[in-house]
């Protein structure tokens, strides 16, 4: 029963911080709320016994990606409230679109038929590093290798875009 309550608290907090990301006017605050959201999501992962993903989530998202965001915000000196008022029409439109999507998905969930769970011997250990590593380096070794192409491309692209040209300085 206590777990139930724990879930509701965690879930409520997650949604709350996520909403704050969207609603807060100050970009830096948004970033910080997002970091908080990621921590809460990680907590959810731990509750689901997916420790590895929980750790990676904190390292990659909260640690690397969000720091990058913060860094860019500071670099561009964007840490001020410069966003003008939204037109009410736009707000209502966005809210209706989002709400509609939510309702449709939740309605579909109500009589959802999931695939049969195939909990077998090592289901308790599914989220542990050892198990994931084994699957990753046997079954999914090719995607793993291929993702290096992705990183290479992203790296080259980022360098190409962010590098200052000589003529722009002159």
């Amino acid at each position: 029963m206590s777990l139930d309550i724990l879930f509701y608290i965690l879930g409520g907090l997650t949604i709350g911080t996520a909403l704050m990301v969207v609603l807060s006017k100050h970009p830096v605050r948004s970033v910080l709320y997002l970091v908080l959201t990621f921590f809460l999501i990680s907590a959810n992962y731990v509750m689901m016994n997916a420790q590895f993903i929980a750790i990676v989530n904190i390292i990659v998202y909260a640690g690397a990606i969000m720091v990058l965001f913060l860094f860019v915000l500071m670099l561009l000196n964007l840490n001020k409230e410069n966003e003008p008022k939204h037109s009410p029409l736009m707000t209502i439109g966005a809210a209706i679109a989002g709400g509609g999507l939510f309702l449709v998905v939740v309605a579909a969930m109500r009589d959802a038929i999931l695939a049969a769970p195939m909990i077998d011997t090592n289901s308790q250990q599914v989220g542990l590093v050892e198990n994931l590593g084994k699957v990753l380096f046997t079954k999914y070794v090719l995607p793993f290798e291929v993702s290096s192409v992705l990183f290479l491309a992203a790296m080259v692209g980022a360098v190409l875009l962010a590098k200052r040209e000589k003529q722009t300085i002159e």
Partner: protein
Amino acid sequence: MLLATLFESGVKIEHYMVLATALFVIGVFGVLYRKNAIILLMCIELMLNAVNLLLVAFSTYFGQADGQLFVFFIMVVAAAEATVGLSILVLLYRNTRSTDIRLFNKLKN
């Protein structure tokens, strides 16, 4: 292993499905609502995280590692996307001194 018995103890997969959907919808709402490109990027990250949550929930439910590995790859891609997205923003900021997407309308007739 108290936590591992979660699914037997009352927190159902449905709860996570709703939570993930809510997070995703907040992300979508943010993309439609906000005008600052950097915050749009953050909202997209939020959407991806909602997907991750959903996948992990399914993966645990099925007792199968594939879903969690997919999450792993989504993180890889999210990192790459964030890098590229932020460098595009830096580039644009250099040209326009702003990240407000409403200013980017040079392409209209």
